[in-house]
């Protein structure tokens, strides 16, 4: 018995010792950090982190919802385009924007809003956290300036679409943030762009591998546009001319190349979103060209943003830009015949037999290739030199320098006419009001389907007269409604936009 007693007293002692050892190591035992990912407390902290965090801000622009919440509603709300696709497709979700019957619960709106703010957050990560990283100071300030530029890009969409929005400038945002005024947001955009201009290199100063990053020229061009929207024509003129006089940009000889694959990062490109022909964002694809791509045969996409008959009619007689803006059925592009979609009528007429739509597609987003992945490779141009010229022209005209304005306006027309003296004669009009309309018209045809027309009409006050027949209500439709989900989630602490 005694021997046995010893045996189990040994057992007990062993257990007790083990128990005490494990009890003592308890605290570490209960620490299970996140596996496979950093947490936000520990990122970004290195030079490489800073670069990764900066790249991640650009990534937002590849997100499908960055493009107006997937569907090009800003064009669809203009007189230049119709919903597109076949009649039933997204009739309930995109259709309402065609005739201004959209409401605050449209998911397109909350998707766009949330994605823009996701971009703001990523820019804030760089702006807030990169300054304290020990690293190459030149790179550090450039990364921050890139983030400043991109934050301005996102806020510019927000302020144009919704007016005064919550002003988020830190990663640790209050959950009860009020809406800032439109002016405060514009001030933030200006500050960001001015800061970016101080630091960013010119497009040509970037290494070949870095082309596509925000440049000084891009920041100035965007700032000119931001001033134009605020009717600060003196500053708009100043920054547009600085871009023009930098001598770094020129128009593509062929208008088509302003948007084509061949013209990517070309002399006309001031800022564009690089994308690869991959059907996935994580692999570098951008769905922008797919959503608007030819539907049916070739199967490039969904066929939204169909050029309206009004747009086609707005081109001057013989303007070659029409055919380079609109894809017609039967057209052959890069050796591919466009047959279109069997579920989409070739012609649509209203009850009175008037032609209201023909099956066409947006040629600006065309990329060579007859499959879906090729459509994902379209590099969306956010600012191109032709627009800078037109901003300059508009600002100069407003600043009572019509002669100077005509120079830049006619630069755009000259390229468009492709050497054919019979079309698109130089403008000579110097009457301020008439010239203003001519410049606006030039913007319409030059920048058609590039997400400009609706906002051009709103900022020039022409929206009620031009878009009224489509359902536009003055005092209401200048702005989109704050997404209802956002109003709900913030417990209605914000005031909804007027009349919504």
């Amino acid at each position, binding site marked *: 018995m005694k021997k*046995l007693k010893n*045996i*189990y007293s040994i*057992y*007990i002692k062993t*257990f007790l010792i083990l*128990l005490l050892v*494990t009890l003592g190591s*308890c605290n570490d*035992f*209960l*620490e*299970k950090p*996140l*596996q*496979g*990912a*950093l*947490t*936000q*407390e520990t*990122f970004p902290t290195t030079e490489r982190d800073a670069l*990764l*965090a*900066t*790249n*991640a*801000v*650009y*990534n937002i*622009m*590849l997100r499908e919802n960055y493009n107006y919440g997937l569907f090009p509603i800003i064009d669809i709300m203009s007189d230049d385009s119709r919903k597109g696709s076949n009649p039933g497709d997204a009739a309930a979700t995109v259709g309402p924007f065609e005739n201004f019957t959209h409401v605050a619960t449209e998911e397109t709106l909350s*998707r766009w809003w949330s*994605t823009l*703010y*996701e971009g703001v*957050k*990523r820019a804030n*990560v760089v702006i807030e956290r990169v300054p304290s990283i020990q690293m190459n100071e030149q790179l550090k300030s450039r990364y921050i300036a890139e983030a400043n530029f991109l934050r301005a890009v996102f806020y510019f969409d927000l302020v144009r679409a919704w007016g005064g929005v*919550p002003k*988020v400038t830190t990663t640790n*945002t209050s*959950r009860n943030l009020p809406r800032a005024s439109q002016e405060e947001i514009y001030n933030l955009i200006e500050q960001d762009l001015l800061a970016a201009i101080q630091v960013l290199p010119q497009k040509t100063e970037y290494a070949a*591998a870095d*082309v*596509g*990053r925000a440049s000084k020229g891009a920041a100035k061009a965007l700032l000119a546009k931001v001033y134009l929207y605020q009717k600060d024509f003196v500053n708009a003129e100043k920054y547009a001319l600085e871009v023009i006089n930098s001598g770094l940009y020129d128009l593509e000889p062929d208008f088509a190349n302003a948007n084509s694959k061949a013209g*990517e*990062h070309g002399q006309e490109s001031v800022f564009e*979103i*690089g*994308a*690869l022909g991959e059907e996935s964002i*994580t*692999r*570098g694809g951008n769905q922008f060209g797919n959503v608007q791509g030819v539907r049916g045969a070739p199967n490039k996409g969904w066929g939204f943003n169909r050029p309206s008959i009004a747009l086609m009619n707005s081109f001057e007689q013989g303007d070659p830009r029409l055919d380079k803006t609109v894809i017609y059925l039967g057209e052959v592009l890069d050796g591919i015949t466009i047959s279109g979609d069997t579920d989409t009528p070739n012609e649509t007429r209203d009850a009175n037999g008037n032609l209201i739509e023909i099956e066409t597609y947006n040629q600006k987003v065309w990329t060579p290739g007859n499959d879906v992945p090729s459509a994902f490779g379209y590099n969306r141009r956010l600012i191109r030199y032709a627009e800078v010229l037109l901003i300059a022209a508009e600002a100069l005209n407003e600043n009572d320098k019509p002669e100077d304005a005509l120079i830049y306006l006619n630069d755009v027309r000259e390229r468009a006419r492709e050497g054919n003296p019979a079309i698109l004669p130089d403008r000579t009009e110097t009457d301020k009001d008439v010239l203003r309309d001519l410049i606006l018209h030039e913007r319409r045809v030059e920048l058609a389907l590039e997400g400009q027309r609706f906002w051009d009409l709103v900022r020039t006050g022409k929206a009620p007269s031009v878009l009224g027949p489509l359902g536009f209500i003055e005092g209401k439709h200048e702005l989109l409604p704050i*997404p209802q*989900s956002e109003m*709900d989630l*913030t417990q209605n602490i914000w005031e909804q936009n007027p009349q919504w």
Partner: protein
Amino acid sequence: MRKIFTIVSIAIATVSFTGKAISQATPQDATSQNTNIEGTVTDAETGEQLIGVTIQIKGTTVGTITDIEGHYLIQASPDDSLVFSFIGYVTQTIGVGNRTLLDVQLSTDVETLSEVVIVGYGTQRKSDLTGSVSSIRGKDLTQIPSNNPMQALQGKVAGVQVTSSTGAPGAAPVVRIRGVGTFNNASPIYVVDGVILDDISFLNPADIESMEILKDASATAIYGSRGANGVVLVTTKQGSKEDKAPIVTVSGEYSIQKLHKTIDLLNGREFATVANEINPGSYNNVNAVPNTDWQSLIFRDAPIHNYQVSVAGSSPKIQYYVGVGYFNQQGIIPKSSYERVSVRLNNTFHLADNVRLGSNISITPYKQQNTNAFSPYIAYRAQPVVSPRQMDGSYSPVAGVGNVLADINYTNNFDRALRSVGNVFGEVDIIKGLTFRSSFGADLELKKNESFTPAFFVSPQQQNSTSDLNKTNTDRLSWLWENTLNYTKDIGKHRINALVGYTMQEASSEFLKVAGENIIRNGEDFWYFDASNTVGNLTENRVELDQNYSMTSYLFRLNYVFDRRYLFTGSLRRDASSKFSKENRVGYFPAIALGWNIINEAFMQDVSLLTNLKLRGSWGIVGNEKIDYSRRFSPVSNVFGAVFGTNETLYPGSSYGVSGNPDLTWESTYQTDVGLEFALFENQLKGEIDYYRKRTDDILISLPVAGYLGNGVGATITYNAAEVLNQGIEYNLGWSSEINDVTYSISAMGTTINNKALKVMGTGGPGDRLFNSAQTTRTVPGLPIGAFYGYKTDGIFQNQTELDSYPHTSQAGVGDLRFVDVNGDGSLTPDDRTNIGSSIPDFIYGINLEVGYKGIGLSVDFQGQAGNEIYNAKETVRPDLYNFEQHVFDRWRGEGTSNTEPRATAGGYNFQHSSRFVQDGSFLRLRSATISYDLSQSVAEKAKMKSARIYIRGTNLLTWTKFTGYSPEVSGTQPGATGTGVLDNGIDYGTYPVSTVYSFGLNLTF
């Protein structure tokens, strides 16, 4: 095992008297006839001296009790009889006669011992139990041809709902104990020989000795933060100490499975007729169209083989059980099967009288082939007017859904896994009654999945331009070390059982996925990766989110029984889990319970009708921490690359992902239970009835957060922000008796469930969305979890006038459904969607009958539920023209023709989520019927067998239901999806149907 139940005494100084008035027999009381009687009372088996045995002179209140040496002294006359009674032992009455020395040996009360119930970290007499615990014997678990032991519980245990939502081989049933108290994982935990597990599909039912379902807080609180969904304790078989010679059991069962029912769909001609109404001129001659019955093409009859051999026995130092099982189920849809070998080795070594060492080890390799999960759904929707194959033998394109035969043929998906669960333990009886036990258990699973899709072309919509190969590897290991001290002591009428313990558990896992394409040949021999065929950016590597945690726990429990009449249980568990941040890590889970064995009261002794009557009540807090560990962290995501360069290149990018919530904590369930147990007519009628009320607070739900916070589209953050109540009554009633040579028994069980959400933060409430992303369920205060959500229909627009006078949307026309303007604002908007049903039954029940006559046995089990609805989702999402269910025959074709079935349309307006697709989900099912024959003992012995039985059995033979789908047991998870089944419960997608099974089996014992 017996040792544990034996009441042992230890030397302590005082012996106290019990409350019942027993006058001490003193010398002063003695009369001239009285003489001193003395003696020692010992345990008949062990010879141990028993202290506290009551000795009473029969018919008087005079008595005494034994002292610490088991010795007693009493004065009695020779005519008196002495009654020796002690809890757990058979009472003896002995006449005094002329003796002065009377040594008595008491033998243990076998009947009481057989009523022992396994509870968390120990055992208890059934009569001492204060909690709500249901026990199932192992032999009842093999009455259903299934690989999963839980399947056999359908309709057998009050308070437990087992739903076989899919008939796919290897699929586990959905188990809910006393309703649904969470929006997250609502499954119970399983404790197999002390090892805590999330599922037991690896367990061979034939290896199980018993199963106990712990339902109320008194029983589950000892499992603390994991007990809220209930606990299933599983004890596997051991060699019995009584069986010195090995007992060899051989059993075999062969079954054939057949599709239980088909869905009534349109044939080719009928479909063409309806299609012509929708798109006039679609089919010129409806009599000449092909007629394909897609259902008959994808279903087949398929066998199940189930064989096992076990050897059990003991020697003085060793108890052993070795079991080997083989289970092979082919699916009724081609390319699905489940094959498992299960090996179990259970041993206990008696190193000394008071030292035991043992192990329970199972090793289970299995292989599962998964067919295309959508195939029943595809076959359901496929147009019958398409022949399955074209003239050249190739698959015909099928509009909208694709050719299901091609889908099945091109699906190659295999799981191959090895799971091993086991523990080793040591037990030392330190002093009598005090046992220290340490058990180290582990659950290991190595699982790999391979799927291969060859390049093929059926149509532009159904093609795969390059072959695809995916492999995933998951390894998972969790270990659990439990140390407990258990102290049992009887002092007179007081019985104390105390438990303290400390446990540690850790789970780790890794998931690795590799993907490739353009595999050089289709054959399995070529399913390997190399540098030329891997697709790097589809590689995925992470931990399994629910399998990465550690936990330490302290446990305490005290059972106190006074005089077998008054019962008390108090328990407390302290859990600390790594799933929560340091500040929120520790939780305390207390429970108290009281019981009253009324039957043991003196005033009941004359009531011969009743043989048991017990009242018990409990209250406690239990938790649910089955959430993935990552939700409290705010991660940085690394998939935010951007494209730069004249030579465009994707450069990596990283930034903040969706924020987490560091304040998360477990869900807490406050549970109250009141139960009454009774037995009448010498135990021929037994019953148990319980009322339960479970309020779960701090339920974790993912709430959408404001977009301006920058978490991205549709981002949600998890909060402890909801509250749910489950309450109901459950009962068990059984009658067993015999008439002449016929033995029979009838039992019935039932449970009522009243489930409702009390609080749900956020707007709209969490819900489930169908393929078209329209919301089908919604959980809001006042309604059951996952209530169906949609428009309420109240007829058909019969004519234009009616249409004009009712609120309607612009899409509605004459002959279309009329939706109710629920909010009465005069217009029909999405705000008019409302609660249109619930998947949670009001009542679940089961009825079991058994009859035996001279070796012939008949047993019949019914199971059913009532008061729930099923959402027939497979009928709703229709972007293309699909086949219809036959109720389209009754469609509206002009004023007055129908007020329920709208005009024929391919999809759109009439197929929006509405009460049109809500069906009554009540059913009664003849779960199983078995006829068996046991060879008579004498014949068996001649064949050198202990026993032999042959049987035939039918499973899922008949179902009475109004539901039109394959089976009314619907859990609703979308095919292929891995939801929790809480918010999408009761939504039918036409998942893999449950089959009717006919079995033949043989059991031999040597």
